[in-house]
C-alpha cells in the first residue's frame, strides 16, 4: 500500500493566463510527481494539487517566486487516509 506521509494538497489561485501557463508547465515536471486533483482552468478559479513531501519546498518557492497565490488545503494527506482506513476497519468489525 502506497503511503502519502507529509504530502500536502495546495489550493492555488492563478490570477491570469500566464500564471495558468506556469502551472501547466509545473505539472509537466514529472520529477515533482504532482497530482492535480483539480486542474487550473480559468483565472481566479482554484486549482488543487497534491504535492509529495519531497517536492513541497521546491513547489512553494516556485509559486512564491512567480507571485502565484496559494494556501495549504490538506496539511498531511496520510492523516486523512489513516482516518478513512480506521473507519473502514471499524465498520467491518
Amino acid at each position, binding site marked *: 500500500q502506497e503511503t502519502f506521509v507529509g504530502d500536502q494538497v495546495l489550493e492555488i489561485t492563478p490570477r491570469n493566463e500566464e500564471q495558468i501557463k506556469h502551472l501547466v508547465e509545473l505539472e509537466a515536471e514529472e520529477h515533482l510527481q504532482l497530482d492535480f486533483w483539480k486542474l487550473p482552468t480559468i483565472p481566479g478559479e482554484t486549482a488543487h494539487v497534491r504535492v509529495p513531501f519531497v517536492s513541497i519546498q521546491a513547489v512553494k518557492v516556485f509559486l512564491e517566486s512567480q507571485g502565484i497565490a496559494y494556501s495549504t488545503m490538506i496539511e498531511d494527506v496520510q492523516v*486523512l487516509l489513516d482516518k*478513512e482506513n480506521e473507519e473502514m476497519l471499524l465498520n467491518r468489525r
Partner: protein
Amino acid sequence: RQRNGNFNFEAYHTLEEISQEMDTLAAQYPGLVSKVNIGQSFEKRPMNVLKFSTGGDKPAIWLDAGIHAREWVTQATALWTANKIASDYGNDPSITSILDTMDIFLLPVTNPDGYVFSQTKNRMWRKTRSKVSGSFCVGVDPNRNWDAGFGGPGASNNPCSDSYHGPHANSEVEVKSIVDFIKSHGKIKAFITLHSYSQLLMFPYGYTCTKSDNFDELNEVAQKAAQSLASLHGTKYKVGPICSVIYQASGSTVDWTYSQGIKYSFTFELRDTGRYGFLLPASQIIPTAQETWLALRTIMEHTLNHPY
C-alpha cells in the same frame, strides 16, 4: 455477511461488500430489482448493473458512478441511491410513476479494477488498470476513452498521465461494455454519471465549446436540479457545459451518450464542502447522497414528462 437491511452507509466499503449489498437488494425487492451483468473489467471482475423494472420493455434511465476509482463518495452515493429507489417505489408518487413508465439501470462501480487498486495499493489511483503496450505505465483515464472527439484537446497521449486517453476509443473494456449495452438497449433516454469533486452539474459538450442544440433545455433542467440539491444542505453547485465550466475535455462519457441521441446526458461532480477533495470524510456520505438524490429525481421527472 451483512445481514439484511443494516448496511452501514456511513462508511466506505470494499468491492465485495458493495457486491453483497447489491445481492441483498435484489433479494429484498425481487419484483423490482435484479442484477444484470454487462461485461467484465480488464482484470476479469464482473461489471454488474442493478436493474429497477416493473416489467416490459420500457425506455430507461442510466446512472453510473466511480469511473474514476479514487472518488469513493460516488460509489457510496450510488449504493445509497439504489436503496432509495427500491424503498421509494410504491411509497413516493414521483418514483412510482417514473418506474411505472421507465426502467432504471444503476452501475455503482464503473471501474472495479481501479477501485480495488485504490483500496489495496494506491488510494490516489484514478484510471483503469489495463496494460499499455510499449509503456511501463498502467491504465487509461476512462473518461477520455469514449468515441466523442477522441484524442482531442484536454486528454493526454502519454500513458503515464492521469488523463491518458488510451490507444484508441473504447480501448478500455469497461467503457466498451457500457457502449455495447447502451447500443443494444437502444431506448436509454437519460444518462447520468457521478464524479467527484467540485460541486458541478454539467452537460455536453466537453470536447468543444460550441453550444449543443439542446443547450437551453439542458441548462434549465440542470439549474432546477442544482436548486433542488441546494435546498437540503445548502451545497452550492455550478451549472453549465463541461467545456466552459471546467475545461475542454475530449472523449468524455456524456459527449458520447449525447452523440447517440441521449438528450438528457449529465455529469455530476459531487461535494467537497470541507476542502477534503475526494477524500470526503465518511460522515458526509449520507448528506451527499441525500442532496444528490433531489437533483437526480428532478432530472428523472423531467425525462419522464418530456418523452422523445
